[in-house]
Structures are given as C-alpha cells and as structure tokens.
C-alpha cells in the first residue's frame, strides 16, 4: 500500500498579535483602520505591522498504511499544530497534505460530550460529530458500551460519571469510528493502567487491520512500545524521523541540561516558568557532600533540589519531582507534601529537596522532571526532563557491586543460601 498521509512544505503561520492577545475587539480593528492612512503616509503600506510566528515550517512527511507513528517534541514544537492541520481543524499557511481515507481524531477527551446528556445520548452525539452516520453508530453501539464498561450507567448524565468512565466512553466512541487514519493526542495520560492497556490493545488492533495511527505523546514508554516510527518535532520543524528507541534517546538527550544544575530565572524573579504565585528558579542535583554534580556515586545518596520564588503567600502548594530512565520510563514520583503536609509559604526563595538513597538506581542516565501545583486546582509549572544526571559505577572499597548488572534498579537485597536437601 502507498502513503496514506503525505505532506509537503507544510507550514502554519500565526500572527503574534492574535496568538498572544487572543481575539480582537472591534475597537482595535477600528483603530487599526483609522491608523491605516497614517501608516501609508509613513511607510507606504496599509497593512498593520505584525510579528509572524511560524508554529510549523516546511514539514514533509510520508506515512504508510498500517504504520503507527509517534510524534514527540517539546511543548510548542509544533506537534499539536501538525495534528490540527491533519484533522482539518485549522488550515495550513503553506504546503499541502494528501490524506487517503477517513480521518478520526481523538484530540482531547470528551470534546463533544455534553455533561447534561446521558451516556447513550452522548454516544450518538459524539459519533455524529466525529462523522459517523446514525446507522453506523447503532451497529457499533453495543460494542462501544462494552468497551467503555458503562452499561449500567447508559441513562445517567455523563456529568455524574467518574473521570475514568468519561475517558473510557470518549475513547470507545472514537476507536469504533473505524477510520483509516486515527489521530490521537495525549489521551493516554488519563485513565488507569488497565484502561491504558486496553486502549493500546485497541490501537494495535487498528494498526493490524491496516489502518494508520498517529500518536502525539509525552509518554516515551508508550511511544517506544506502540510505535513503528517516531517523528521528532523541534521549533516547528521535523528534526528527525526513525525507530522510536533511537529517536527518543536523542530527543531526551537534547532536552535535558547536564552539569548538575539548570537555571530558569535570574535574581529579579522573572523569566522562569510559573504563575502569579510561584516561579521556578533552578533544578539541581547535589551529591551527599553537598556539591552540585552531574555524575553521582552509585553507592551514595544524593539530593534533588527544586528552587523557586514564592510571589504570593500560598498554602497547600505542592512541589514534585519525577525521575525517569534514559528511555523515558518513569521510575518514581515524589512530592514535598509527602513530608511536610500543608505548609504556608510567604514570599521569598525556597528550596524543596528530596533525598534519593544510594544503591537504588543502577548505572546509567536519568532525567529529572519537576512540577509545582495546587493539587487538583492549578498547575504552576511542569518542566519535562529538565535535568539529566549520570549514576556512575565506583571502584575502590565496595567495588564488588559495580559490575554490569542489568535493570534500572540496583538494590542490595538480603540473600540467604542454605542447603535444603540431600
């Protein structure tokens, strides 16, 4: 089979004024018109000056039928814009796309669901929005209900559904659309493990049936497991494409700083990611002797530090750290609420520090993701794979454990050897 998705020279330009300021008001437009003669007098042009911003530039991709392709990249790299163009939500500024077959998109969970309507009603509504005919929905109805495991709640308004059930139903409808091309944007972030497995299974099934899946995800493990190929977007351009394992390793290596420390803002408290409450200043890793280090001794404990500036008095603030392995597999997540509970923080600079025990992580490259939020209310910042560090084998005393063992963990487990028979 030939290419089902082919793009050439694809680009999308946003005007900065709109991208930042959102919609325009009539007053702005009227002022712009009124100012046009002046501009013409001064610069010989009637058009208002505007800053262009290319969200996507010169992207040429071919995807074959039956391929499962992962799209990775930092926030703002153009992944979502790419998917939006493929799903026809927005038009490209340059280039063209040729799609062979029906396109189904699962862009955000429950888009098109109405909270007041029942599960049954929403299946029909959402199906119609996704482009299914009523007959088709009726034919697939039982299967959708079964997949979503929402049988007993069919006549309940979906606003009373648990978030898990909501997601299941949304995915079920989209997955049963039977499109030739399925676009999936970051849905696997939600739902429990069992459901995620089910979704992955369904996507695999879709691919085996000769259909094509395009998956945007920050979940590197899912991309590695599911995809035949990864597309790496960087600053609006397609940087590289190839086997997922290889591309992900390169991508992660490019995003993280090494050197044991990364600064996001300067003394004035501006510039770092954050909100009106808190701004991230730095992430660093310290050895147990208190030195900032990018290479750590496998036997010794070390500290991961998040330094931030509180701009307004807060309570209930949570700062978290996630460690992941070189391929993006998340090893653990931990937050300062584990220890401190609720804490009032007055404006000023703070450090939340956690200690990672020695002889826990095996030798290799690890990434630190940090985040800060009011739980369930507001996320202040989330920096994916912001810092990288190495766990190195150590010689000298105790060197007997620094052999080439496999696995991500390196625990010293108690062993006993005894003879239990003749």
């Amino acid at each position, binding site marked *: 089979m030939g290419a089902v998705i082919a793009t050439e020279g694809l680009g999308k330009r946003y005007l900065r004024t709109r991208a930042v300021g959102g919609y325009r008001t009539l007053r702005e437009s009227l002022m712009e018109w009124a100012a046009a003669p002046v501009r013409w007098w001064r610069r010989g042009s009637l058009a208002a000056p505007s800053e262009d911003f290319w969200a996507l530039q010169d992207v040429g991709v071919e995807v074959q039928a039956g391929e499962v392709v992962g799209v990775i990249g930092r926030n703002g790299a153009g992944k979502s814009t790419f998917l939006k163009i493929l799903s026809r939500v927005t038009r490209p500024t340059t280039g063209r796309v040729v799609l062979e077959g029906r396109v189904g998109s699962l862009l955000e969970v429950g888009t098109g669901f*109405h909270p007041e309507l029942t599960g049954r009603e929403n299946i029909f509504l959402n199906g119609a929005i996704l482009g299914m005919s009523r007959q088709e929905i009726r034919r697939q109805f039982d299967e959708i209900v079964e997949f979503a495991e929402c049988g007993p709640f069919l006549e309940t308004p979906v606003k009373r559904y648990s978030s898990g059930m909501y997601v299941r139903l949304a995915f079920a409808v989209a997955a049963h659309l039977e499109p030739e091309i399925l676009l999936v944007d970051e849905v696997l972030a939600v739902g429990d493990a069992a459901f995620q497995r089910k979704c992955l299974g369904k996507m695999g099934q879709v691919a085996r049936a000769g259909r094509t899946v395009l998956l945007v995800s920050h979940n590197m493990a899912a991309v590695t497991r599911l995809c035949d190929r990864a597309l790496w977007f960087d600053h609006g351009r397609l940087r590289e494409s190839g086997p997922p394992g290889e591309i992900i390793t390169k991508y992660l290596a490019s995003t993280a700083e090494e050197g044991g420390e990364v600064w996001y803002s300067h003394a004035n408290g501006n510039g770092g990611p954050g909100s009106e409450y808190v701004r991230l200043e730095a992430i660093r890793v310290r050895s147990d002797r208190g030195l900032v280090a990018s290479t750590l001794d496998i036997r010794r404990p070390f500290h991961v530090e998040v330094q931030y500036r509180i701009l307004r008095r807060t309570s209930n603030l949570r700062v978290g750290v996630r460690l992941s392995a070189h391929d993006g597999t998340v090893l653990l997540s931990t937050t300062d609420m584990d220890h401190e509970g609720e804490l009032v923080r007055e404006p000023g600079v703070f450090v939340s520090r956690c200690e990672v025990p020695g002889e826990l992580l095996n030798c290799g490259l690890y990434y630190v993701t940090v985040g800060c939020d009011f739980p369930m209310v507001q996320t202040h910042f989330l920096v994916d794979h912001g810092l990288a560090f190495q766990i190195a084998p150590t010689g000298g005393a105790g060197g007997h454990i620094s052999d080439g063992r496999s696995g991500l963990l390196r625990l010293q487990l108690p062993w006993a050897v005894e003879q239990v028979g003749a």
Partner: protein
Amino acid sequence: MAEYGTSVRTEIVPSRGWQGIDAHELWRFRELVYFMMWRDVKVRYKQTLLGAGWAVLQPALMMVVFTVFLGVMAKVPGANDPIFVYAGILPWTFFATAMANAGNSLITSERLITKIYFPRLAVPLGAVGAAVVDFLVASVLLVGMMLWRGVRPGMSLIMVPIVVVVIGLAAIGMGTLLAALTVAYRDFRYVIPFLTQFWLFATPTAYSALPVGASPWVQGLVMANPLSGLIAAFRAGLFGEHMPWGLLASATALVMVILAGGLLYFRHVEDSLADIV
C-alpha cells in the same frame, strides 16, 4: 456507510479567500445538523424545570404584556386582540431566538471547533433548528386560541409554512453573519441583545404592518425591515385576510440578500475560525 466509503481522498491546502458554500459536504453531515439541534433542545429542556413550557410561556407572557399595556392602556389599534398580538409575537420570537442562538452558537461550541473538524455551518444551523422546535411547541397555543375563538382559516393557510421558511432563512442569514462576527470581534456578543430589542420595536408585532399616521421616517423603517412584511403575511395567511403580496415579495428578496451575505461571510471566516475563536 457507502457515502463515507474507504477511498476518501482529502487534500488540505491553504485557504483561498472568498468561496461558496460546500453544499455537498453539508449534505454529508446533515445528521450532525440534526444532532446539534437535538442536543440544544434536549439540554434546554433538561436543565429547566418547566422544560418545553418555556417555549410557550415566553411568547404568551409577552402577549399578555403587549395586550395590557399597548392594547388596553395605550390603545394601539389591534393590540387589544390577544390572537392578533400572539400571531405577531410567535413568528417574531421564532426569528429572534433563532438569530440570537445562532449568533452565540460558535462561541459556545468553542471547544468543539478548536478540536474537531466538521462543516462549521452545522453549529448555527442546529441552533436555528432548535428554535424551530420551540416555534412548533409555541404554535400549539395559537391553534388553541383560534379553535376557542372559532377563527377558521381559509385556503391562504398554505402561505403560513412558506412564510415560516422565509423567516427561518432570515434567521439563518442574520445568525451566521452574527456568529462569524462574534468570533472575530467579541463585541458583537453585546450587540446581539441590543439588536434584538431594537429590531423588536421596528417590527409590527403588536400593531398592524403600516401604522396609520406615523411619520414617513418610521414608515420607511418598518418597510425596510423584512420582518414587517413577513409577519403581516403570516397573519394574513392565518386569518384569511388580504395577502400583502408586494410587501412579502420585497421582504423575501431582502431576506435572500441577507442570507447570501451571511453565508458568504461565514464561509470566508470559517477556515480561520479555530485560530481566532
């Protein structure tokens, strides 16, 4: 399923300025228009205690207010007859709700528009469709009053559905125009209620089409308003009076211009909707 087929080939290219409506595609998504309408109706009736009762209650209360204040107290000719007043308010309410709902529909469907592709026209069309349902429900009261009073319509009754269709087209034209304008300039959100009120005063809902003795200025305003001719024709069809053919024809012509303008502008903005909504 044949209409979707497996060999659908789509080409996506940059938008090309002014274009006509893709009627073929809209036809393919006709069920979506139906579902949008069905959703609007269901949700409204589920969220409110009186449900469908509101569709009748709103014009009925307006009829009472108009009859009492305009008819009995201000002695406006014709306004003291509840049936006459209701026969004006009913089509007006249909037009006003359809226009306002359609005008706001794109913003309320913002999440949908920025996430999924479908012909965007389905959204305002669904909103107008929901107003049709309200209109049918509210008509029950009119039929009831006519039976009770023994008003027997003649052959001219066949004009009534035709007039209603033209009013619907007017609402689609104004609604799509306002919807697209509202997305581009949020100011229009505040313009819609004001426009509706202003338009109501310029429309002979409680008085007959050409108020006797009014200044030529007012007469011109009423004449330029397509709703004047349409409501006069609606009443004439209902009560078997002399059909104002001239007014109806000029109103219909004006509606066609509004419709074409609204749809064209909507189509022009449609491609960039997801970027600016």
